[in-house]
């Protein structure tokens, strides 16, 4: 059965989510949102899925702070972060490139990363553009560090990084190549990755989504997704964009 790259990534992310109580997905994250909704369908209602920006898929009634308070309470199990740069230590940069006094590039800002990265047990890093520009040896600005000193309160952090080329796991302060997506190679991953990473002698290919998973995504998840991501749902899953 043929599938789109987005479907492969969403399937992988759904597996990374695992059996948890609550997954929250930030703004402008259609693939993680697909994965979270897929996980919810598979779990018949578990996990709770909070899609920021979707009134239908958020339960917040305590204002914009509730997401962060909820995470501080230990009630968000999985979150997604990205970075203008991500380095081999799991540090992410959402602020700037260049010297801090005179940056060459400015990104929007750190959002909640400098907090959520510390207190959400499973943070899944997600960056479709896999290049030496984005995956660097050392970020220019640490919006949030991949690891902390042992005495720093930290109940969370990165567990994986998924890109358009491959899936890395993260542990002990380093990335390990877990699998390479169909159509890509280990050599290509090495070539386009700016940081060192570990890898097994034989790197498996990322398994394709099953027919059952594709059916679930296309028939059940995609229509739910269309509320928040109409363009994405149309483009990837062919959900008709409602005229408004």
């Amino acid at each position: 059965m043929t599938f789109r790259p987005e479907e492969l990534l969403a399937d992988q992310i759904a597996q990374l989510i695992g059996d948890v109580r609550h997954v929250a997905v930030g703004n402008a994250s259609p693939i993680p949102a697909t994965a979270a909704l897929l996980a919810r369908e598979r779990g018949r209602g578990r996990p709770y899925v909070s899609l920021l920006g979707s009134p239908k898929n958020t339960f917040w009634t305590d204002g914009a702070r509730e997401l962060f308070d909820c995470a501080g309470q230990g009630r968000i199990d999985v979150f997604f972060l990205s970075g203008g740069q991500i380095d081999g230590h799991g540090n992410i940069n959402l602020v700037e490139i260049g010297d801090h006094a005179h940056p060459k590039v400015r990104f929007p800002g750190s959002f909640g990363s400098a907090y959520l990265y510390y207190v959400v047990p499973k943070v899944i890093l997600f960056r479709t553009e896999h290049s030496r520009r984005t995956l660097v040896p050392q970020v220019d600005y640490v919006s949030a560090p991949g690891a902390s000193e042992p005495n720093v309160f930290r109940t969370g952090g990165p567990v994986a990084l998924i890109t358009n080329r491959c899936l890395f796991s993260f542990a002990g302060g380093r990335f390990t190549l877990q699998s390479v997506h169909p159509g890509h190679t280990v050599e290509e991953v090495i070539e386009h990755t700016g940081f060192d990473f570990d890898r097994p002698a034989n790197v498996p290919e990322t398994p394709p989504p099953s027919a059952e998973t594709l059916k679930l995504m296309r028939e059940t998840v995609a229509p739910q997704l269309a509320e928040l991501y109409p363009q994405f749902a149309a483009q990837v899953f062919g959900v008709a964009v409602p005229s408004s």
Partner: protein
Amino acid sequence: MSQIAATLDEAIEVIADGCMLVVPREVSGVPMDATRALIRRGIRRLHLVALPTSSLQADLLIGAGCVATLETSAVSLGEYGPAPRFTAAILSGSIKMKDATCPALHAALQASEKGVPFMPLRGLIGSDVLKYRDDWKVIDSPFGDNDPIVLLPAIKPDVALFHAAMADVHGNVWLGRQRELATMAHAAVKTIVTVDRIHPGNLLDNPTFAAGTLPGFYVDRIALTERGAWPLPLPDYYAADAAHLAEYAKMAATEEGFAEYLDKYVYEKQAA
């Protein structure tokens, strides 16, 4: 005495050059009509606090030269791309940027709400967000054993400014679930609200409405500005004007285009 001002300009009089102004994120009721009025008035040297992020509003104010200092966690046009005037101002060094992280801004406003000089926050240690904030302190928690924790000084804005669906003649304002707006009002010295409509009766008289209402006690001035969040959304009431935001992103990409945008959508509006 009613807080309802005769005109928008009268309602925003209290927002002075150089003041610290706190405004909400895109989906919590951004006072865009009031923002355009401030630009027309030529406001200068704002210390703008966007709780906890901003989009069009900060970009417009920055582009129009109204902002000296910006304190927020991110500025972006979301699906319409980076915020061009914000980006240009940072790269040229024309504004002072105090980068924060979302929960730090919420906590610092809650500190003023509670009348305490600081609030603690987990996270941050080892980040450059903390490194470049010499107004934030790290202490060893007296309840831990070698347990460093960040303390954030209270943010006490001179003025809180936001847009809401409705207010009543007693100055009570319907906030719904956007409770950070109540915190903004509690924390700020003065609160100015623009609303789409005036609700007949008293919102506090009905326990169901009261639950989502900011009491008029905290509100200094109210101006009626129908669809006052345009082109941004007012969730539960109206959506963003996507075409306009796309047009903004395109025009604001250059300084000239931005000037044209101001002429067309900010200065012209006054005449209309």
